């Protein structure tokens, strides 16, 4: 405060002096001169300070203006954002820790079956039993398998799927559990684990997606219902505008036609190719050819000998199955909701070559008698399903298996009789099926099916099925 007052005084004096130039110029006293110099210096110093102050003031003013401008801009922005918000979808839900839960869905199935023949005695005579679940089901009301599907992308490169089949009698079977690549590039994809093989047309479909209650006889006889091995699959899609796909699989031979071999390496493998395209917007088709090779070790099944004794027969050797398949779908203008038609057929041809042993005369052969065995058998089915009005479909299916040639060394050598292998007796099974189903929504289906089945020799069966299929949970996408 003190220096300031002194300065003010000095400035006042300075101004006073400068205000009287005549007087100042007239002064000659050296003291006065010194004083004037001092005042001039002070004046200069203060002018500098004032300058600085003015500068700071103007700077402050500019800053304020800028701030105002910025505030205005922000307000504008806020308004724009507000407008944008109004135009945008509602804000995202807060992130939840369960947001990454996989897609879950469940299929509920059940049936009422009316079967003329005892389903426990069901057999496809003339064809090696597959030990698979191929019978027509239980008489009366029964719960089908409840299928629980859990799937999700694992990371950007992989997807995982697990499908557990909850058995009505209790217990869980792992139907499928596999990983698959989401595109290795260049049309390549890889799958590994337990999965339905890509052979044929129907093999990859799950039972709830079938157009009839049960599988075609050819699937029952040659694949034990459906082929689902443990192994790996590689597929390559050609860079063409038409679908051209090649695939190969290597597996353990977990189930028929394999025998769950206790050995290293690959016991069962497939190769397949698919070709498909559109004819026009209403018509689409796909054809395929597949080969399945298996080398079962000791594939055993139970039979009854000519004397009525329970026996066990066992096959060792190689099994080779060719499948040719085709599907054509029609939907007017691509709209399948009102009317559509589906025609599908597959042809199977199997060759087996090896040895067949039987323990029916165990005492003579020290455990089991063994001799050569070879067979060449075939089968096919053709089915058409027509949706004649929204929600209602009608379908017909014809199944036929051809016994072909079967050479049993133990019989040919006269060691045993053909009657000792009643399950392999010469027979050409046939079946005709009709079905009507009603699907009130995409997720529900009620089906009435009637079949005239002579799979078993001398035991023609009339089968009536009333079935429901409900799917709940994630909306699954359907394959062609």
């Amino acid at each position, binding site marked *: 405060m003190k220096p300031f007052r002194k300065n003010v005084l000095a400035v006042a004096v300075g101004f006073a002096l400068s205000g009287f130039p005549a007087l100042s110029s007239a002064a000659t006293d050296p003291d006065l001169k010194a004083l004037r110099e001092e005042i001039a210096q002070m004046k200069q110093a203060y002018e500098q300070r004032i300058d600085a102050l003015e500068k700071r003031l103007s700077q402050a003013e500019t800053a304020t203006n800028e701030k105002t401008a910025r505030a205005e801009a922000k307000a504008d922005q806020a308004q724009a954002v507000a407008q944008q918000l109004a135009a945008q979808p509602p804000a995202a839900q807060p992130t939840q820790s369960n947001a990454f839960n996989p897609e879950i869905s469940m299929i509920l199935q059940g049936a009422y079956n009316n079967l003329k023949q005892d389903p426990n005695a069901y057999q496809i005579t003339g064809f090696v039993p597959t030990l698979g679940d191929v019978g027509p089901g239980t008489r009366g009301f029964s719960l089908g398998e409840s299928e629980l599907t859990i799937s999700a992308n694992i990371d950007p490169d992989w997807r995982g799927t697990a499908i557990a089949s909850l058995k009505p009698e209790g217990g869980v079977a792992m139907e499928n559990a596999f990983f698959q690549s989401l595109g290795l590039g260049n049309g390549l994809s890889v799958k590994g684990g337990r999965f339905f093989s890509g052979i044929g047309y129907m093999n990859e479909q799950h039972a709830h997606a079938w157009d009839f209650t049960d599988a075609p006889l050819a699937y029952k006889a040659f694949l034990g219902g459906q082929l689902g091995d443990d192994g790996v699959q590689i597929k390559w899609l050609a860079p063409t505008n*038409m679908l051209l796909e090649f695939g190969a699989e290597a597996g353990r031979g977990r189930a028929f036609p394999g025998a769950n071999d206790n050995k290293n390496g690959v016991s069962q493998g497939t190769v397949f190719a698919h070709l498909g395209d559109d004819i026009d917007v209403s018509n689409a088709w796909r054809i395929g050819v597949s080969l399945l090779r298996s080398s079962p070790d000791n594939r055993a099944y139970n039979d009854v000998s000519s004397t009525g004794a329970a026996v066990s027969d066992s096959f060792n050797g190689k099994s080779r199955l060719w499948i040719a398949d085709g599907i054509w779908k029609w939907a007017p203008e691509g709209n399948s909701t009102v009317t559509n038609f589906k025609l599908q057929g597959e042809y199977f041809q199997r060759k087996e070559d090896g040895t067949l042993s039987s323990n029916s005369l165990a005492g003579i052969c020290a455990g089991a008698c063994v001799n050569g065995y070879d067979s060449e058998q075939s089968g096919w089915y053709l089915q058409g399903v027509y949706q004649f009005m929204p929600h209602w479909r009608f379908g017909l299916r014809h199944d036929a298996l051809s016994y072909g040639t079967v050479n049993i060394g133990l019989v040919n050598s006269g060691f045993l009789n053909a009657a000792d292998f009643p399950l392999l007796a010469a027979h050409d099974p046939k079946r005709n099926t009709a079905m009507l189903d009603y699907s009130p929504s995409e997720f529900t289906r009620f089906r009435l099916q009637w079949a005239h089945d002579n799979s078993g020799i001398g035991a023609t069966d009339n089968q009536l099925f009333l079935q429901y299929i409900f799917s709940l949970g994630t909306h699954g*996408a359907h394959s*062609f």
Partner: protein
Amino acid sequence: MKRLFLLLFSLFSLAAHADLKVFATVPEWGALASVIGGKHVDVFTATGGLQDPHHVEAKPSLIARARNADMIVATGAELEVGWLPVVLRNSGNPHVQPGQPGYFEAAPHVRMLEVPTRLDRADGDVHAGGNPHIQTDPRNYLKIGEALATRLGQLDAANANEYQANFRNFAERWKMAIAKWEAAAAPLRGAHVVTQHKAFPYLYDWLGIVEVGTLEPKPGVEPSVSYLGEVVADVETKKPRMVIRAAWNSSRPTEWFSEHAHVPAVTLPFTVGGSDQAKDLFGLFDDTVAQLLKAIK
């Protein structure tokens, strides 16, 4: 064998030098991609103009096209949930999987209507993201087109400027067209209508049309006779001026309603190719507005 390799090689090299291959799920995005992409894109449209976009099969031809695509242009909002995931998973093409730059969805770029507050299949065919039929409001094409031009430029940087220029050119013509349609459609403002399937909320939102009823009791659920009777009974109070269906809807419910409620039945093209006049995006809205005006006279 040598020849096969040569053929395959030429196929590969062809693929490497060709334009951007765009796979559009529905005709409207195919048309938009063609306009913005111009001569640098080769557009494949997975569905036809008269096809119900809810029920599409994962056909072999679609898998083959997705395998070779550089970009998928989809609606999103679960419209393609029944088939596109299968097609993409089987395509063996990592560039077009969801989350990749080669996968584009239109719905995230617009304001969604009819977003359900409750997700339950008891409510019929509901979509968690809101009503997916966003292509019936022409204003949406400006936002989607802008995003699409940017994405095309991201995938094909060499032609990015051209995509932007094509979009600006389109946007200018489109804005003028919108003004023209809005002026023409002024008499429709406030008009009450009944719709077969909830396919047009965006159109109604744009033109100020009021939906007073639907023939489907719940989205995707076929109308029953008793429910149709209820809708007809409401005619007295709600006074609809017309009953509207999309080209792919079955004609019977609207015809029945038209006869019983004595209001004209209108078929709207819904997308490019949905009618003879809807040859392109401009034609789509020319015809939509014309059909509506014809009914209100």
